[in-house]
């Protein structure tokens, strides 16, 4: 495997995996919470929240990246704050790529988890509540196990999307080999130089394999959740 890819290519693959992993992990709790809000609660501004969540899906990725840059960049107000107080710098670092990937993958994750929430009969939760369980306890012991497959499916989908994110990443953190050059950025870079086709091709294969694998896993998990919930009803 290591022979098959050159060190530069291998670096890009490893970086992408790391970025996608952290992007998925950090956005998961927020994703579950937002999905729950959208599936279960009625509140003013729900449509706005729904729109905001889906925004990265349709907003030009370049604009999303630009927004991230002016917010989290060295001169952005959040970026400055993080730098001064915590010494965290996001722009042009792999951590910034994590943020960009997380934002771009967020809509897909929320969508999958929201569907899982909507498939759970609220009566089950109410029943647990009448048995004296606190809301948090109900969530942990009743709801979460039921939506777990949906959560996994959403996480896998988000992971795949994060692996392939390009437009926002390159705008926010640029294309620095070893630091921010993820798989798609590397493919892009190889395509810019003459004779880079063969290298790009190998990375494309890796990219497709990851995407297909993730999607198949997600569909498989999703199918299982449907069966399980169906069996309960």
């Amino acid at each position, binding site marked *: 495997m290591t022979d098959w890819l050159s060190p530069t290519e291998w670096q890009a693959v490893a970086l992408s995996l790391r970025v996608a992993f952290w992007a998925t992990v950090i956005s998961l709790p927020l994703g579950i919470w937002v999905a729950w809000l959208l599936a279960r609660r009625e509140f003013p501004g729900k449509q706005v*929240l729904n*729109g905001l969540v889906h925004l990265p899906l349709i907003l030009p990725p370049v604009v999303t990246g630009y927004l991230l840059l002016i917010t989290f960049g060295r001169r952005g107000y959040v970026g400055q704050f993080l730098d001064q107080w915590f010494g965290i710098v996001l722009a042009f670092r792999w951590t910034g790529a994590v943020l960009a990937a997380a934002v771009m993958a967020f809509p897909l994750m929320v969508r999958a988890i929201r569907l899982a929430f909507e498939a759970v009969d609220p009566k089950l939760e109410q029943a647990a509540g009448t048995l004296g369980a606190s809301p948090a306890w109900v969530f942990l012991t009743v709801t979460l196990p039921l939506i777990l497959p949906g959560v996994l499916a959403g996480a896998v989908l988000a992971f795949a999307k994060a692996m392939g994110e390009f437009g926002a990443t390159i705008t926010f953190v640029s294309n620095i080999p070893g630091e921010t050059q993820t798989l798609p950025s590397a493919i892009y870079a190889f395509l810019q130089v003459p004779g880079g086709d063969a290298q*790009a091709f190998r990375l494309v294969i890796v*990219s497709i394999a990851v995407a297909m694998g993730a*999607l198949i896993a997600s569909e498989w998990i999703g199918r299982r959740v449907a069966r399980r919930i169906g069996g309960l009803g």
Partner: protein
Amino acid sequence: MMRVVAWGVFLLGCLFFLLPLVGMTEFSLKMRRGVYSFDAYAAVFGDPAFWATFGYSLALAAATIVVGVVLVVPTAYWVRLRLPQARPFVEFITLLPLVIPAIVIVFGYIRMYNTSSFLPLTGSALGTDILLTMGYATLALPYMYRSVDTGLRTIDVGTLTEAAQSLGAGWVTILARIILPNVMVAVLSGAFLTLAIVLGEFTMAALLNRPAFGPYMQLLGANRAYEPPALAVIAFAITWGCMGLMQLATRFAKHERAKA
């Protein structure tokens, strides 16, 4: 207590989203020293390249929508009518563009249709435009398919088809006069989404070297100071506009029904 915390987090989230927008908008108004002005916007709208690329992307979006509708409506209809067992497979296919990076797709295009291939589409501007349209249609496929499929769910496809057949209608008539009008709202909502995606798409247009709006935004963003935020605000407005139009399309349909 929980409620207060939840609202606090919610407000914080809103600020998180809104502050950059406000900051960006404010910045875009500061081109003239000391006072707020629309100079940056004037500069953007005054740039012929803006109109050229915007017009080009708009035209391609229209072509993409047509291709998408022609491809998706009959397919979704046929799967519902005759191949329900193929549904999981088709849904899987339509999800692929969500996770396969656009750069991978365009890489495939460049290799398949380069000037030395059997179909040298990249050799001419028109050929490349066709290729780009196909690429955009692929990107928009998940949204268009989901939307149309949901639309089809609201009508009894099988019985309406049989009713039309018994009245002498063939497939073209059924699709054009019965199926399409009944999923028009779904098609429109998918079309606005497609429009938003195509207008902002960068990767494909850049790699195929076409003068589209996405690469223009990128170029401007890299070379200017005040115009990019103005352009971002414009792009944002267009996107929200598309979403609003989608909402409006759904509203309008509900209104039609509610008259009963």
